[in-house]
């Protein structure tokens, strides 16, 4: 597969604190790359450097065949890279409709696109004229996501997709992401719900303390308990992969126990 996004030896700093160190990775065209790692690993920082929110101190980023590390954020966005930032990057005093209008500024997005988004997130249609700042936490997250999707980008970089969303919606959203991928958009996904992410991912990248600790297929990860244990949290590997048996045996408990695995466990699903 042709690489759509290629990071080579990227280093990024906050002042003297080195948040990313010699990070290299590739997002092939049409693939889903899951970017995992504990808090403070540098996932958000990586997305920020890719989308031009932050400049890198070393290294190179190639998107769609051209280096973009010197381009300003809006120019990168216009090349078809949509970054959905962490923590609800919405315009609080603009209405929902106006927020959507701002998506992909400069590119035409007719009523068709708006209709699609409302179909995907019916709540947003109901809240159309409400100031985005007064939306509930989850509604803001949906809005943020909707803005990324509406432009049909080449690469969608999502930071903590499922943050603050109800379980039912999380499941739906991952379906949506799969559909977006099927329509030709590549996806760089930062996610704490490891199991969901692994189910969808073609490639997994684990960051740890600003360095790449693992790159490979989800399958490889499933067989390497020590990796999972050391980077994705505590005892998760101990109960690794038992979720589906529970689910069959005890339908009622399955809800609870398989939900349990969504954050802690890594499963092939």
């Amino acid at each position, binding site marked *: 597969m042709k690489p759509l996004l290629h990071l080579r030896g990227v280093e990024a*700093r*906050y*002042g*003297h604190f080195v948040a990313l160190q010699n990070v290299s990775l590739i997002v092939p065209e049409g693939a889903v790359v899951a970017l995992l790692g504990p808090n403070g690993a540098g996932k958000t920082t990586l997305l*920020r450097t890719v*989308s*031009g*929110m*932050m400049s890198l101190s070393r290294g190179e980023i190639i998107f769609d065949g051209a280096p973009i590390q010197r381009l*300003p*954020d*809006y*120019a990168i*966005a*216009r090349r078809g890279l*949509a*970054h959905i*930032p*962490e*923590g*609800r*990057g*919405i*315009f*609080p*005093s*603009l209405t929902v409709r*106006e927020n959507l*209008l*701002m*998506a*992909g*500024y*400069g*590119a035409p997005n007719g009523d068709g696109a708006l209709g699609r988004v409302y179909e995907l997130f019916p709540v947003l249609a109901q809240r159309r004229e409400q100031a985005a*700042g007064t939306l509930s936490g989850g509604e803001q997250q949906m809005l943020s996501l909707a*803005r990324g999707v509406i*432009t049909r980008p080449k690469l969608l970089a999502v930071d903590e997709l499922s943050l603050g969303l109800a379980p039912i919606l999380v499941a739906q959203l991952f379906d949506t992401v799969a559909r977006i991928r099927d329509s030709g958009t590549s996806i760089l996904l930062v996610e704490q719900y490891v199991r969901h992410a692994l189910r969808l991912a073609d490639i997994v990248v684990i960051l740890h303390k600003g360095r790449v600790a693992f790159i490979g297929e989800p399958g490889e990860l499933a067989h390497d308990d020590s990796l999972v244990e050391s980077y994705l949290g505590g005892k998760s590997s101990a109960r690794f992969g038992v979720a589906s048996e529970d689910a069959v045996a005890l339908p009622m408990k399955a809800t609870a126990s398989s939900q349990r695995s969504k954050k802690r466990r890594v499963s092939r699903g």
Partner: protein
Amino acid sequence: MQAFLNTVLVGLVTGSVYALASTGIVLTYKTSGILNFGYGALALFTTFVYWSLTITFHWPVWLAAALVVLIVAPAIGFLLDGTLFRKIQGQPIVIGVIATVGLTVLIQGIVILIWGGQTRGDVPSLFPRAPIRLPGGLHIGVDQAALFGLAVVLALGLSAMFRYARIGVAFRAVVDNRPVAGLMAINTRYVSGLAWAIATAFAAVTGILLTPRLLLDPVLLTPFIIAQVLGAAIVGYLRSLPLAWAGGLFLGVSQALLLKYAGSGSGIGDLRSAMPFLMITVLVLLAPKTLRVAGLGSSFIVKTREVTGHASPQTRAVIGAAFFGLLALGPAIARGSISWRLSLTVGMAYAIVFLSLVILTGYSGQVSLGHTAFMGIAAFTTGHLVADQHLNVWLALVFGALAAVPAGALIGIIAVRVHGLFLALMTLAFAFMAQDMFFKQPSVSGSNGGIPVPRPPGTASTNAFFYLVLAVLLVCCLIAINLRTGPTGRVLAALRDSEMASRSLGINVVKYKVVIFSISALIAGLGGVLASMVTEQATSLSFIPFLSLAYLTVTVVGGVFHVGGALAAGMLWGLYPKLFGHIDIMIRLENIFFGLGATLALARNPEGLFGEFRWIGAQLRSLRDREPRRVAAPLPVAGGQE
């Protein structure tokens, strides 16, 4: 009846000028999130360019106007955005206020440097002044009709743009959340530059249309425009263009009626100039909650350069002691020069005033543009207690300063309801009303414009008075330090960061706001009385409201976050004329110097002059510790996050 209608018509015409101008300021506010106090100054500068082109170089009026409005003004706007406004966007409201006030000072300085201080009455009008006759024996000038029409068209057109055009929404998006706007493929530099270009063009239009009827006065025009414009703009709560426009008309008509029917006698005649501020007060107090507390611009400070880490308490104590020790030696060092000693005294008295602003703005994040009111209340009270009640001057000094406390408490109570920019405007209005309705009254400031404020017994000599002020300053500094380091200071800092969280912890917001404003008013009052005692009189001119803005500006130049900043600001204020008095150009550049200090320095370093000292200190420490220096880079902030 006809007389009444004619008065209304006259009012409407004046009002449409206000309307036009206020549309401009609302435009800037909506597109940049900054309430541009420099709007009047920008109008002044561009109009002077227009005046030069037409009068000095004999250009045709339309060509000159086109050049100024379409090229000169937008270029200035772009430049200002790039060098200043872009860097302070999203910072606390006070920073925007100070930057634009600094801009005013700067531009006025430049105008006076280039064109001198004279008033020009010969600005050519774009439209003929020929009268148009209306039915009923009324008539207005063509220029006035054009003005009226233009104001209507621009208000409606612009508000349509904001509502329906993508660029209009983009302006607001950039104000709302700049980092995310970039991600949405919005070229934020271009958009905010364009916003300032348009706004400056608007200021130019306002000036060019206004001055043929008014006078082009380098000093008086700016505050006049600002006062009227704020009164009008507040009707739409700084957001609605049509309402701002209507507010302008209302203001014009009501002023005309007041002039005609209430006469210009004492008291109520001053109501006319107080009118915009009455409107601000009433409307802000009546504002719906969402508006009162919203106010654009988050409270999240992104310091452009911040020195982390502090010198050890011992080091700071030593530096403080050294500073005061040196000050105490001042009279001995400047034994030969009374004026040096006086200047030092003035500097210290004002350092007390600036300290009150450090406490209020630096520690607790509240903005007051009305501190002259507290100073005036205290000074006049002291004067009258001595003159009328024959009170001991020491007691009068104390009671005078205490008299400012209820006023401070009142503003504190208002601050519970009203936040941010609207609060700042309220305090400015408060200062104006205090000036127009009280300080100017002969019963307050005496029949020849001033009343005596004698020095306390035993401190009549220059030296004794010097040490009195020094002692008061020292005590105030110690109190401020105690305040900052103790529980109360922590609560104030907490309120500054998140009022909601503070309330959820059980912090009584009302109490603390009242307390902080009262303390600040008390200290400002003390400073005001002492400053008056230097010259031994208080005049109504000592407390003109715009000085409040100057004080805040100077405090920021000195460093608004630290006690040391107030001291630096006081020394700057007191000693500048002494240090540079013999260099003509430096005196003429004083405004420019302070203006630049407040604007450009602010964009680079919000901690002011004292921040530079801290920076040097940090360098020294890191040399000593052989560590890389601890200066945090700008934090990229995904807006809306915290």
